[in-house]
């Protein structure tokens, strides 16, 4: 890539724009993050991207923290800060104004329609996230089995997700995956 701009400003506009398109939350934007970070900008490898997803899921805080990790890889602490704020501030400002607008205007049915229209979109995006992450991190049949088991257990039980992550880490350390 021979873009003349500084890495920090690339992060700012990349994530600033993504922020407004992340319908359903940070996990919906994972395919786009992967497309940009791995395929378009070559900031990292597939394996690094999968690692960052793992670290973000293991750390406390909202799911959006994967953006902090990507930012750090690109431009150190300044990059981490720039990426996180760019991903969070535009949508936070939008949320502020929309909530004020809704609390002033008379009760309308638009929020319900918007929600009904956007929920399937966000689920489709999450499915795409799952697929892309599975393709990057499950490179053996045992790895695929671990993913499927974790999905099944988390879906069917109320087990604390942290245990599943821990179990995955142990299996990885033991060299099963």
């Amino acid at each position, binding site marked *: 890539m021979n873009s003349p701009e500084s890495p920090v400003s690339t992060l700012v506009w990349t994530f600033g724009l993504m922020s407004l398109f992340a319908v359903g939350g940070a996990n919906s934007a994972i395919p786009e993050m992967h497309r940009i970070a791995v395929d378009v900008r070559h900031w990292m490898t597939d394996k690094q991207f999968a*690692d960052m997803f793992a670290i973000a899921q*293991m750390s406390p805080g909202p799911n959006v923290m994967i953006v902090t990790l990507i930012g750090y890889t690109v431009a150190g602490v300044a990059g*981490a800060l720039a990426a996180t704020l760019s991903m969070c501030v535009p949508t936070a400002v939008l949320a502020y104004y929309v909530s004020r607008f809704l609390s002033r205007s008379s*009760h309308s049915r638009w929020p319900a329609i918007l929600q009904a229209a956007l929920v*399937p979109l966000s689920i489709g995006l999450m499915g795409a996230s799952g697929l892309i992450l599975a393709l990057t991190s499950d490179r053996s049949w045992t790895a695929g089995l671990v993913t499927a088991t974790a999905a099944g257990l988390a879906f069917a039980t109320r087990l604390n997700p942290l245990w599943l992550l821990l179990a995955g880490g142990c299996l*990885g350390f033991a060299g099963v995956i």
Partner: protein
Amino acid sequence: MPPDSPPAARAAPDFPTSIPPGLIALFVAFAQMSLAGFGGVMVFARRAIVDRHRWMTADEFNETYALCHFLPGPNVVNLSVVFGSRFHGIPGGIAAFAGLLGPPMVIVTILAALYAHFGEIDALRRILAGVSCAAVGLLISTMLRMMMPLIKRRDVVGLVVLVGVFIAIGLLRLPLQTVLLMAIPLSIAITFVMRRRTSP
């Protein structure tokens, strides 16, 4: 759901809510729920706001949550701003936002630095590979849970939209903006037309 109450007014309905939090209390409360929130903060946010501090009733929380869910961007980040600004305007929104993001950002930045130094160590690579396999499973289970209501309702339109987006983004790897700029208006239009037909 209670209709819109003015932002500053304290809730009158079913359950008494406590005194509104100050700026420092907002920051601390959101920092606490954020640091407790492994794998998603929203559950902890509900517990802290509704059950522990009683700053909102369950209905108010659900309404705010729904708003923050249909807005783009990280849901709980939106929630922090909407919640904080409800009590103290823009400074309140900033206090909650900073509490939610500041502490985990410090932790994750440290982890990122450690990863940059030690990411090549074989044992760590294997552990992270295992964790990411499980984490992908968790994400898939969340998606399945969200999908169940659509299947139960036999919401064919919703499922078609869902599959369309999945194919465009997951299989064809099209850019997010392109897909959503087409899918969002389309989905809203279809939903609008369907609702008019079913409920006059």
